[in-house]
């Protein structure tokens, strides 16, 4: 059931009759309602499709185009209907929003078209109902990512060289985009070849070759033909060093270049050779030297400059970092639990391989990943039972994040494919996307300011006013309430006020209660307080202004869409109260004729002449 409060307001106001016998004072005058009560049918023509609806339906949301006087701009006198040159299919959804209070997102529509229609009709996308919100958000995010990628791709260095570029810039371009010049292409392939040669050499030099004459044992080829391998290694390292130095020279920002991943890989790939040259042929350090040679395998990562697929894989892993992290964390937890259990289960057995809990880690990992080497096997029955539970749970835990990673990879891969396709149709696309981006940016910052206060708000405030009169207390907010509690207990009254009106008010009232009220008013104006405040005789209307950044302004639609979030209790930090006061002539205050009442405040209120209230501003908002 769409809880549209506006319809129930008349009934709530009628029910206020029940407060009358209890009220000690007369009720304030109700706001004058000039709108005619008779309902009429409006005709809305959207590109030829005629829609008809009650005027009341459209008036439900006065902060939108159709609910405000803005629609008069589209009124066609000849045909006596409102004509919009927009998509009638989309308009159906918009109109349904007015009718039911819920905005639905049609799945078959393009997200951008939908957003544009919403922006045109002045509807905030945040009020999309829960049923469609997730889909909307997903599509929107996907679209934004796509646009960001496309702009990035288009801004990339595929544009032709600026005419006056230094040799350094040309060199950098040559390195980054090999297919721009023949020399760069040649260099690209040469380095690729040498990377391959270097990696193969690393691999082959460990293969056992036939022993030379006179020896029995098999020798690894690296030691048999060590001169040949050394020459090959030297050549590769020379090429790599040359390439690295060239890139360093050509890089527009050397610090940034040195910190980039590829440059680190380059350094790690060539350092072992130089360290090996420098180090003496000492038995002690040769062990360390050998381990350094391991780093030569990092040369294989240099291939990622040449292979797009590798880059995609790397990017996928980076974007799935959170899922991978979760996988790792849950695995660690499971490993620790099972290792502990297995250790204690197998503790009693003699000659058990489960010598300690860390030793059991190995067993747990091997079992959970369903490897099952068999080097550690439980022998007790309890151990076997827990071992089987361990292997079953391992399958489950590992299977969980995998689909996420896979879907991420496929999404990125397809995006890359698309990017390649689009590079073929460069120019026109570039222009189109620029305009799209501009429009997106504009629509995000559109703030809809409606200057009219709705009749609904007037009436609602009147109702709250009546309640105040009945109970002889007023609404205030948490901050002032705590202040009041403090001052009441201490009995200390000061009159600190910063605004003109409150100063004037202070002059008019000499009794002790007023300073509190005056200070309250001043504090209200300055502070970010919550909850609305209403005054007594002076007709001040309060509105609450939402300060969230995502929602430019809240309308009554928020009342309808999210009934649960509207408890405007003092705990909420998002609201600021703006005080609006309408100066009323003193003759209007009905309190003049009242007999003295137990609470001293209202009597004093009388004297605060409203003339001083000349402020300020107000945004609209609604409750």
């Amino acid at each position, binding site marked *: 059931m769409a809880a549209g409060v506006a319809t129930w307001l008349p009934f709530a106001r009628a029910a206020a009759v029940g407060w009358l016998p209890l009220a000690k004072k007369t009720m304030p005058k109700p706001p004058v309602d000039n709108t005619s009560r008779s309902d009429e049918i409006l005709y809305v023509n959207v590109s030829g499709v005629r829609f008809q609806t009650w005027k009341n339906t459209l008036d439900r949301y006065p902060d939108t185009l159709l609910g405000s006087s803005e629609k008069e701009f589209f009124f066609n006198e000849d045909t006596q209907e409102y004509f919009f040159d927009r998509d009638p299919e989309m308009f159906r959804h918009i109109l349904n929003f007015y009718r039911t209070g819920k905005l639905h997102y049609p799945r078959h529509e393009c997200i951008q078209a939908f957003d544009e229609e919403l922006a045109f009709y002045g509807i905030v996308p945040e009020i999309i109902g829960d049923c469609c919100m997730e889909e909307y958000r997903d599509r929107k995010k996907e679209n934004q990512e796509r646009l960001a990628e496309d702009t990035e791709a288009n801004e990339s260095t595929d544009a032709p060289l600026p005419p006056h570029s230094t040799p350094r810039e040309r060199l950098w371009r040559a390195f980054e985009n090999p297919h721009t010049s023949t020399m760069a292409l040649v260099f690209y392939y040469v380095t690729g070849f040498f990377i391959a040669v270097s990696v193969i050499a690393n691999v082959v030099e460990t293969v056992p070759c036939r022993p030379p004459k006179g020896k029995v044992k098999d020798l690894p080829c690296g030691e048999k033909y060590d001169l040949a391998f050394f020459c090959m290694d030297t050549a590769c390292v020379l090429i790599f060093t040359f390439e690295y130095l060239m890139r360093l020279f050509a890089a527009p920002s050397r610090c940034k270049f040195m910190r980039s991943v590829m440059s680190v890989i380059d350094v790690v790939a060539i350092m072992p050779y130089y360290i090996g040259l420098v180090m003496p042929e000492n038995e002690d350090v040769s062990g360390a030297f050998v381990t350094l040679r391991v780093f030569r395998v990092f040369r294989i990562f240099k291939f990622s400059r040449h292979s797009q697929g590798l880059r995609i894989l790397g990017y996928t892993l980076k974007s799935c970092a959170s899922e991978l992290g979760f996988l790792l964390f849950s695995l660690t937890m499971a490993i620790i639990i099972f290792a502990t259990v297995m250790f204690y289960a197998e503790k009693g057995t003699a000659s058990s391989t489960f010598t300690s809990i860390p030793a059991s880690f190995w067993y747990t990992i091997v079992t959970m990943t369903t490897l099952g080497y068999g080097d550690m096997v439980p022998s007790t029955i309890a151990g076997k039972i827990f071992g089987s539970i361990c292997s079953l749970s391992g399958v489950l835990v590992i299977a969980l994040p995998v689909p996420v990673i896979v879907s991420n990879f496929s999404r990125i891969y397809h995006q890359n494919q698309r990017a390649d396709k689009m590079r073929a149709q460069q120019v026109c696309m570039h222009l189109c996307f620029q305009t799209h981006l501009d429009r997106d940016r504009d629509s995000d910052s559109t703030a809809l300011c409606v200057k009219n206060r709705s009749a609904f708000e007037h009436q609602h405030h009147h109702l709250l006013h009546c309640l105040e009169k009945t109970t002889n207390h007023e*609404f205030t907010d948490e901050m002032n309430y705590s202040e009041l509690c403090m001052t009441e207990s201490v009995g200390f009254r000061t009159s600190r006020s910063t605004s003109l009106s409150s100063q004037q008010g202070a002059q008019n009232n000499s009794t002790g209660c007023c300073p509190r009220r005056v200070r309250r008013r001043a504090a209200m104006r300055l502070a970010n307080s919550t909850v609305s405040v209403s005054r007594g005789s002076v007709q001040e209307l309060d509105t609450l202004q939402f300060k969230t950044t995502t929602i430019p302004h809240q309308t009554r639609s928020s009342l309808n869409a999210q009934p649960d979030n509207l408890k405007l209790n003092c705990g909420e930090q998002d609201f600021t109260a703006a005080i609006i006061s309408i100066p009323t002539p003193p003759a209007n205050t009905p309190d003049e004729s009242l007999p003295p009442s137990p609470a001293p405040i209202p009597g004093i209120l009388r004297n605060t002449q409203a003339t001083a209230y000349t402020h300020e501003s107000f945004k609209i908002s609604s409750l």
Partner: protein
Amino acid sequence: MTGCAKRCKQGLIKFALTLHKLVTGTLNKDKADDDLEMTVVCHRPEGLDQMEAQTNFSKRELQVLYRGFKNECPSGVVSEETFKQIYSKFFPHGDASAYAHYLFNAFDTGHTGSIKFEDFVTALSILLRGSVTEKLQWTFNLYDINRDGYINKEEMTDIVRAIYDMMGKYTYPVLKTDAPKQHVDAFFQKMDKNRDGVVTLDEFILSCQEDENIMRSLQLFENVI
């Protein structure tokens, strides 16, 4: 002892059923089916002419009222929960559920547990277009929680407390705990003419008619619709 054994047996049966559902894999499906089988209560109001005769509204006004009502409650009835939620929206500062409960009972003249359009319109007709006596009678009915024809202090205290609850915690001046009681005492001081501790309908109407403020205020709500 027998109660304990019975509960144990029931628990065992429930456990066995759950185990069975777990094994056969039908743990959650039944609940959804149950929900679908629940009947949807629907109510249609009596004819427009009849209602026009019974209330003080014109046909057009009834049409507007019904369209709004039907839009909010397609099923044609308002339950107490919904009523409380709606009413609470107008008083976000405090807790309107207690007063909404009394209001619901006042609207639901037939004590059916839900408000239909006829109840809605009848009450509105009295409140907005009725005579002074009718309005006061409706208010008396609201205050008389147990519908025995008398308002005693407890009932009045409940009502007044409910009204004060709607104000919320943060009021100015600070709400004292005996404020409702004082209010009730003042009320009885005024209304209870023969000092017998209860207020009857006649006393109520008489006292209200003597009070100018109340009379004046009653006129204010005429133009709500």
